[in-house]
Every structure is written in C-alpha cells, then in structure tokens.
C-alpha cells in the first residue's frame, strides 16, 4: 500500500513543487533543481530547517525546483508538512539563519494620509511576480488571496504570502496590503489567522456589504493582534465595495471602524452583481475586444474596460446609458461621497487591459474627475501612467503655492480672513495645499 503524498507549490519559475510522504525511515530530502549545481545543498538545508520547526524527522521529501528563493521553499515545505498533519513546534527565527531575519517587526503602522494612487495587485500564489515588486514605485502592494488564487491553492497561497511578509525581502517602501477572502466564505477566517501575525499594514476586505462586515473583521483582527503581541489597531482596513447591497451601505461601511484608511470600489463584480450588460459589447470595434496579455496577472476580466474604450460615437443615440461606464457612475459617486464624508480616500477599480495605455490614461482622468484618489493596477507598466495621472498639475501646484504663501503671510501679520483668487482660505485649505505641494515637488 502506497503512503499518501502531500503536495504543495507548483512547477513554475522561481517556485518549486514539493511532495512529502510519511514513512519509518529517517527524513530523506531529494532535490531536483535547475540551479542545483549552485544551490543544491542550500535547498536541502532550507527544507531541513522547516522540517525541524515542524518536528518532522521521518519520511521522504521531494522537491522539484526552478530557482525558488529560500522563502518560497520554506513556505512550500511548511504547506506540505501541515497538510500531512504536522504542527509548528519551534519558531521560524530559531531555526532559520540570518538571511531570514524577520523584517516584519520593523514595519510601521500605516495611516489614512499616505498616497494610494497606484496599488499593485500580486497573485498570492505566484512567487516570481512578487520578487521585484518593491522596485516599481507602487504606493501599495496587494498580495491577493481572493480572486487571483484558485480554490485548491488557497492553503498554499496564504502560507506563501505570510512568509513573504515575514521575510519582507524586496518589498521596498510600498504599503504592504493583503486582500483576504470574504469573511462570510470558507477561507476568510483562516486567511486572517495566518496573515495578521506577519504584520501587514492593511487588509482589503472584499465583498463588504454592511458595517457589521467591517466590525466583524475589526474584532477578529484585534483578537489576532493581541494573540501575536501586536498593538491592537496596527492592521488597517480597506473595505472593498463591489455589490449593489454594499454600495447602498457605503456610508456606514466607510465609518464602521477606526482601522479604515480608504474605501475601494470593485467595478467588475459590481457590474456583474447588478446584471448590467454594457451596450458597447455589441458595438465595440474588434480592436477594443483584443485579448489581454497572457503575462498579465488575472485580476478582473477585460469586458468593462473594452466598453470604456469603445468610441462614444458608436453609442450615440443611447443617451446616458451610451456613455461608457454609465452603469457604475452612481455607485462610484456614492463610494466617493461615503469615503469623503468619513474622512478617508476613495479608491477606484483596476483597469484590466494592460496593452491599452490610452484607455488607462482616460480611465485615470475619469476617476480623478469623480473624486477618486487612486486606481488599482495589475501590471507594473501601469504604475508610472497612474502616478502621472494622479500627480498634481502645474496649475494646481501654482495655485497651492499662492494659497500657502498668502496663508503664511496672513499668520505672520496676524490677519484673520484671507482669500486667494476670490476663494476663502482657512487652515485646512492651507494644509491641503501644503500636502499637494509636497507631493508635486517630490515627483518633479
């Protein structure tokens, strides 16, 4: 009778496929690797370190590696051992070498004031996409455990993301966020239990439909923070509204927790939820419906964006419904109102067609005009485009400069009421102008 084998990982670049099989022999580690000549011993050592943490001394472990870094190897080995019923008996820091020094402990709490113009989604189960993710200048990096991870990979993915957060290699200065699965479903609670102790700066809660959804996450995260010896409230929240019910509760959701730092909108799921059929699907020219790049991480379909790219002329005669994106305008405005009323930033959906730069520029301009403070991106090439689109214009900067100068002069002279270009200037207006100038100068 063959013993059961427990698999984890995948045959992919910078990843490994591992298999563990219990037997009575002392633990044997068999390494097959494309970098075996240079790292064969290091790979076996990484596996044995994890085995020691889980008290695994017997059995047979096979690893088929294509240049995975130690973190990915450790995460895959841990997943296989846990599937086989082993539990951790020693902390990772004790067994691991200096290369694995936990940087998670150094991560500072985030705030609602930091810019979140471009937030890059990274599929949680693909290590190679995360390797240099900190280098591309994204304001936020989102490790996605929800839509980008298939059901049968949820277990492996949450361990991989936790280890990535713990080791923190190469995450740069971006805000570190994890999108967990909805708490109402079968995976959300396990995601939180795995992830919170690795000190993510924020968590995106998908499919938020009520203040109670946020309050439940708040409580669960608080308990986990306490258990991990973290200050309660460290982990911030970005509720993601993507259903009709959620939009109608947006104001309550935005104000539901002091952890909230921004409110996100998910257009793909929303359009599906309200059963909107974009007019442009019939009217769009073939070019607008071109398949997206296979290299692009799949986060959302391209249909809504294809609609947005359709020339307005083709849809003339349909009135309001003929305006690309019309089905989500009201919802997006409600998100903006709810977020602004709660004193946090509203953040717009992703733009899924990586090849269409002009479409992305249009989409950013539209989001900004509606009041959004940022866009989601699914490929690093979109980041500079989004940052540029959300960058203050020269005109805005010049006006901000006049406001700051007038305000400072008024303070120095002890004057009260002042105005610039006919508009009244008070302390909050001046502070906002100062922030805009800092941002403008920082990027010039």
């Amino acid at each position, binding site marked *: 009778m063959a013993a059961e084998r427990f698999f984890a990982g995948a045959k992919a*670049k*910078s990843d490994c496929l591992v298999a563990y099989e219990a037997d009575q022999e002392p633990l044997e580690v068999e390494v097959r690797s*494309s*970098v075996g*000549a*240079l*790292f*064969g*011993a*290091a790979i076996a050592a990484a596996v044995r370190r994890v085995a020691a943490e889980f008290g695994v001394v017997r059995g047979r472990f096979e690893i088929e590696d*294509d*240049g*995975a*870094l*130690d973190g990915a190897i450790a995460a895959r080995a841990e997943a296989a051992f846990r599937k086989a019923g082993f539990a951790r008996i020693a902390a990772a820091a004790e067994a691991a070498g200096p*290369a694995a020094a936990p940087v998670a402990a150094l991560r500072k709490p985030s705030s609602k004031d930091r810019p979140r113009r471009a937030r890059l989604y990274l599929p949680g189960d693909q290590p190679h996409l995360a390797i*240099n993710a900190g*280098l*591309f200048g994204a304001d936020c990096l989102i490790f996605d455990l929800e839509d980008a991870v298939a059901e049968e990979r949820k277990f492996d993915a949450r361990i991989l993301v936790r280890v990535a957060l713990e080791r923190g*290699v*190469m995450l740069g200065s971006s805000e570190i966020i994890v999108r967990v699965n909805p708490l109402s479903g079968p995976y959300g609670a396990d995601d939180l239990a795995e992830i919170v102790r690795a000190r993510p700066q924020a968590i995106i809660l998908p499919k938020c439909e009520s203040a109670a959804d946020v309050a439940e996450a708040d409580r669960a995260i608080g308990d986990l923070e306490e258990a991990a010896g973290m200050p309660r409230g460290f982990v911030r929240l970005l509720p993601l509204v993507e259903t009709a019910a959620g939009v109608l509760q947006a104001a309550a959701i935005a104000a539901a927790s002091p952890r909230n730092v921004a409110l996100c909108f998910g257009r793909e799921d929303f359009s599906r939820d309200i059963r909107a059929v974009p007019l442009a699907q019939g009217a769009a020219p073939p070019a607008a419906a071109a398949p997206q*790049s296979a*290299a*692009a991480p799949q986060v959302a379909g391209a249909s809504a964006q294809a609609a947005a790219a359709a020339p307005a002329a083709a849809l003339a005669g349909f009135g309001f419904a003929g305006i690309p994106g019309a089905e989500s305008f009201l919802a997006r405005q409600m998100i903006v109102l709810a977020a602004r009323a709660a004193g946090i930033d509203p953040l717009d959906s992703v733009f899924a067609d*990586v090849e269409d730069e002009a479409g992305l520029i249009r989409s950013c301009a539209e989001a900004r005009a509606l009041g959004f403070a940022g866009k989601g991106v699914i*490929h*690093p*090439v979109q980041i500079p485009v989004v940052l540029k689109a959300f960058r203050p214009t020269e005109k805005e900067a010049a006006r901000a400069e006049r406001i700051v100068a007038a305000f400072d002069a008024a303070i120095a002279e002890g004057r009260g009421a002042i105005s610039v270009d006919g508009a009244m200037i008070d302390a909050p207006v001046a502070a906002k102008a100062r922030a805009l100038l800092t941002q403008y100068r920082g990027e010039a």
Partner: protein
Amino acid sequence: MDWITNAAGRSVPAEIGGRKLKPFAGAIANESPTLAALPAALRPLPARGRPNKLVASWDELLDRLDLRDGATISFHHHLRDGDRVVLEVVSRLAARGLRGLTIAPTALFPTHDALLPYIRSGVIAAVEGSMNGAIGAACSRGEIEKTCVLRSHGGRQRAIQEGELAIDAAFIAAPCADPFGNANGVYGKSACGPLGYALPDSERARQVAVITDGLVPYPCQPWSIKGGNVDYVLQVESIGDPEKIVSGTTKLTRSPTQLLIADLTARFIEAAGLMREGFSFQAGAGGISLAATVSLAARMRAAGVKASFAHGGATKILVDLLAEGLLGSIVDLQSFDLDAVRSCASNPRHIESDPFASYGPRSAGCVANMLDVAILGATEVDLGFNVNVNTHSDGQLLHGIGGHTDAAASAGCTIITAPSFRKRIPIVRERVTTLTCPGEVVDVIVTERGIAINPRRADLADRARRAGLPLVTLERLMDEVLQITGAPESPRFADRPVALVQWRDGTVIDVVRQLEHP
C-alpha cells in the same frame, strides 16, 4: 601544460597543441600583428571566357573540393535557427569518411545541436566559433577532442586575415546568387538580410562554395559576396526554413524587471549627456536592449534629438525609427525580422555591413569606433567591472561572444545591462567565472537595483548623480543580491582547458575549463 598569468590576472596556457599562445596584455596593448600564414586564396590567372562554376550536385561539389581529414570548414549564421546547410555538409563529409574536422561557424543555433553525434564519433574534432546550447555544454563536459577557440566577430575576421584561422573550404549559404558566385541575402525565398558575416571567409578561404536556393541570372546585385572569390556554385531546393530564419515581428518584453532596466539605461544615456544631436548607438536584439532602444527613442522624441546611426542587429523597432526620421541610418550586420530584411533590401539608408567594417581589430577604425554608446548584455559581471558572456555561474559554456568585446572596446561609452540576479542565481559576482571582457573597457553596469559606474568615469557619475539616478557600488549591490539569493556554491573544474577565450587581438584573456561533475 605550462600556465602563465595574463594582464587580467587569469591563468592561461602558454601553448596548446604545439602552438604558442600570446597572453592577454591589456585591451589596447598595441602589439604589432603577425601573419601566421600566407593568404591561401591567391588563385592563378583565370582562363579566357566565362568560368563554369555551377556544379550539379552535392556529390560533384564535394568531389571537386580538396578536403581531407583534419580540414577546417566554415559557415555563417545569417540563416540562424533555420539553417540547413551546416548539417547537410557535415553529414555528407561524415558519409565520405572524413574525420577530425574543425568547424568554424560565425555562430551556432539550437538546430545545430544535431552536430553532437559527429562530435562524439570524431568527425568533428574542434569548434572555432561560438558554441551555444548543447554544443557548448558538450564542450564543457570535455567531449570535443581538441581545445576550441572562442572569438568575437571582429576577432574572427582578424584571425582569418592574419592566417591564424586558415579555412580550407567556406560553405556560404546564399538566398540569392548568380552562376558566377555573386551573392546576397536580401532577395529570394530564404531572404535573411545582410550576408556580411561570410565576407572574410569568402576573401581568404582556400576554396569557396556558394550554396543557393535562389539562383538568378548574372549579375546578381547587390553582390555582398563577390563572385571573384567564389570557386563553385551549387543550386539546392532549400538552404533553410524561412519561418526560423527571421521571426515575424520582434516582440517587446513585458517583464517589468527588464523594462525597469531599459528605462534606467535610457535615463542614464540622456542624463550623462550622451544623447546629443547626431549621436550614435548600438543595442542588441535581446529583451532589455530592444526595450532600451524604445525608451531611448521616446526620450529622443521628447527632446527633439536625432541619432546619426544605429549599429548592430536590425529589427522592426530600428526600421520604424529610421522611417520616423529619428535615425539617420542603420548599419546592419544581421536582420532579425521581416521588416528589417525588407528595409535592408529597399532603403539606401539601411546599410549592409560586415565584420571588418563593423568590428575589425586590424583596421584604422571600425563602425564600433564611431559609436557614442554601446548597450550590451552579460551572464555575469564582477566587482572589477569585468564581464562574462560565455559561461553561466555553474561553469557551463552556453554562449558565443558575438560583437560584444569589439563594441565594448571601441565605443565611447560601454553600458552593460543585466538583472542583478536570474531566478536565484546572482549575476553580480566577486570574480566572474569566465572573463570575456575586461573592466577597463566597461563604463557602466545598469541593473534593476541601481546603476554602477566605473570609478574611471567620474565624469559620467557626476552627471548621473545630479540627475537623481540611483547609483550603487558593485560591492553593495553584490551584498544586497546575496541577501536575497544566498551564496552559491562554486563549480568544480578539472585542469583541462576545453576552450580558449580570445581577446580581439588574438591574445588569450581566459580559458573555459572542463567541468569535473557536469
């Protein structure tokens, strides 16, 4: 075997097979050239009237050629992975019982992995030319009987000119040729663009045969290969697979890391003041190089700057820039896609070059000397700015030199672009596994984790710093990378050198050693 330490600090043999070797003495040592042998291709006066060079079959051609055991035969690589001529010739010579051949291709491609059985059976005893993929790996394992020689394109042309690489027969695959032997690569069903890599062989080989699947009436023009240098012309059904000779259109990389390196490279070129009106550059057809060309073009467009010429392999990207007017001309050694082939055939500003004109070491200057910027790749770089393009960190020989050292040693500013690690293999090393190009001719190394500038080029560093570019030292970069990847083990080599790495002047800059446990 006696070993000596050359000027780059590498241990190299004093002689191989009775031939005394010259150790590398510096990138520009100005050692006077010596003629190793008299030029072989001095023919008697031709008889009156039209010579009859057409042969009816492969058998007739091989009957008429004087080829014996141990002969040296040469090929060009303009047909790339679509080439059918190399294997045809070698298999026919093997069938005729020839052994101990030296093959001297300008480069080999995966299709030529099929030469392995002839190496193992002793038909081929040495390769003097680039060894890629499976042939390189076999060389690393010590399967090739004699010591092989790796030369740059310019170095190969020099070796032929000086008689160091004496060719008994050159087999020149030609997409378009006439019965007199004039030939070009721009027309015909197997069109590949330039045919220049074969030019030195046609001028100096003892016997020259043109193999064509596009026979046209005399005079074939342009005559990239001059019929006066050609002894035989053989018409065949097909010299290669057009699908693999040129790709449809060269696709731009989507790798964010490669795009980041390309962007940094273009920003550096502008910030360093190299992107002046009328400047010139060379960038290869690899992922980073193509993307760097695109990024650079965007900056030229924004700044209203035009380049006088671009050099090297031609692609649709360069052809489009030529049409747009951002380039004055393209100086082309090989066309990578159909757009480049068509442009080479039809646009007088798309100039066909050859190894002497482009890279010739024994010249009063070559195209590479006219370059302001060369953007080149690497498999490894080290703390001394030394570059390896031949072996991987595991010691396997997997690549030829191409025009790398010729461009690096001649251009005004030599930029190496490379990721700081691939998969988990660090690219920035303390000491390169194999030395191809010495740090004395390398000015800048651009990685996704910052730009390292050779301390000799304080001028460049100043300008880059003022522009706010992320500068790093190689020491810091190496430490950062090792933190990520962990330290690799060292490959275990046996003493036996399986290949010599020549500098452009024929001196030995390093050797590739046999792997102990491949």
